Structure formats: C-alpha cells, structure tokens
C-alpha cells in the first residue's frame, strides 16, 4: 500500500518523531511504500539542519534523510509553519533578506496543499501528534 505520515511533534521534546520514524521503518519492512512524511506544527523542527543530539541518542534528522536516500521518501515541510518558527531554505532566506539558512535538501518547503494531496493519493495517512 501507499502510506504517508503526518508528523506534528517537536523532535526530542515529544516521542512523536521517534514513533513516526519507527513506524516508517516498520511499514517499509512489511513491503509498503512510504510516499512522504509531511512535517506540520512543531514537527517542522525535525528539518532543522544543525541539530546535534548527544551521541548516545538517536539522530532523528539523519533518520529522515536515510529514509529519503534509501527509499525515496519525500520530506515535505509546511512552509507557513516553518517560516514562523525560524526554518527556511536558501531561497526563502534570500526572499526574506536573511543570510544563511536552516533547512536544506532533502527536506523541501511546501504548502499545506501537499498534505491534502497526500491524503487523497495515499491509501493510508497516519498522524503522529505531540
């Protein structure tokens, strides 16, 4: 089946991100396809490129990137939720006249419309809230 995940919890603050990553791996192991993870609400913080958790803790951002690289999972970050929270890619940073950026590929800033689209296209959409 085609799955999508909606993740709305902040990494390290709530278990939501860990739960979502664990669920993602499990569904892939059962032979399903994961189209995308859509990051919304505080879930967008998962896309922060500079995160540096202690070495004995799981590195969530690396976990998402690995899903993308190994399985082609799209990592879609709600742009409105992200901008308010200080997350922007180079293009948005330029548009807002700011130097530097806090989000980079394979995370992509996108609109809420993508979430609506995923909910229509996929067989299952599973939400992980805080």
């Amino acid at each position: 089946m085609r799955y999508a995940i909606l993740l709305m919890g902040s990494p390290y603050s709530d278990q939501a991100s860990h739960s979502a990553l664990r669920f993602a791996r499990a569904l892939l192991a059962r032979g399903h396809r994961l189209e995308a993870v859509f990051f919304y609400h505080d879930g967008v913080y998962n896309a922060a490129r500079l995160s540096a958790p202690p070495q004995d803790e799981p590195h969530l951002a690396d976990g998402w990137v690995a899903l993308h690289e190994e399985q082609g999972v799209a990592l879609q970050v709600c742009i409105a939720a992200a901008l308010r929270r200080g997350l922007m890619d180079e293009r948005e940073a330029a548009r807002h006249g700011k130097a530097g950026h806090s989000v980079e590929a394979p995370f992509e800033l996108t609109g809420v419309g993508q979430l609506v689209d995923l909910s229509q296209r996929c067989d299952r959409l599973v939400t992980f809230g805080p």
Partner: protein
Amino acid sequence: MSDEHEPLAGDLLVILRHAPHGSSWLREGLDVALVAAAFGTEVSLLFMGEGVTALVEDQTAGALGQKGTAPTLEMLEMYDIETLWVEAEALSRFGLDADELMLAPRALEAGAIAEAVRKHPRVLTF
C-alpha cells in the same frame, strides 16, 4: 448545499479540539480545512472539546496583537465550508448553547459524532 458541487476524491472531516489563542492548533487545523476546500474537497468541520470555544462571540486580538482565529472562521462560507458541527457534550461542559455561537453550528451527540466520522473517508484531527 452538498448537491451544488460534486465532492472530489472524497470528503474530508477536520476535527478541531483546541481553543483559540492558547495554541496554534486551531489556526493550523483551519488552514488545512481552507486549503482542502480551495482544492475542491468538500470539507466538514467538527469542533470538539475545547474547540467549541472557538465559536464564542466577541473574540478579540491578543494582548500583543495576535490575530486569533475568529476572522478566519468568518471566511469559511467563502470557501464553501458549510457543514459545521459542535460536540454537544462539550457544549454542556462549558455551559454554552449552540444557538449563541458564531456560524450557527449543529450540535452532535456522541452517537452522531461516530456516525459523522464513519461517513467521511478522510478525517484529520487537530
């Protein structure tokens, strides 16, 4: 209303369970509803729990100028979002009547809530 336009791939029920001003949940849930409606999805809204307070009249901006969600709620009709439900049990918990709320929502008892959820192929909770 529902016979004016063909619902697309499926109707969407958005459940709003948070109060205005205290968090961004209500606004972010409404954003999803509005975008889905703009894409042609037929959207129903159900206000549950603290979410029913979103419909209290006379809301204002926050002390620092935060907009709140009342202006967004007033745009629902423009987006053809016309099915508005509130949880009857939550209304009584807050001592509110459906007919003193904005937008004239319809109160649903628990059984009718389960029925509404069952009828919608897609449900998102905020």
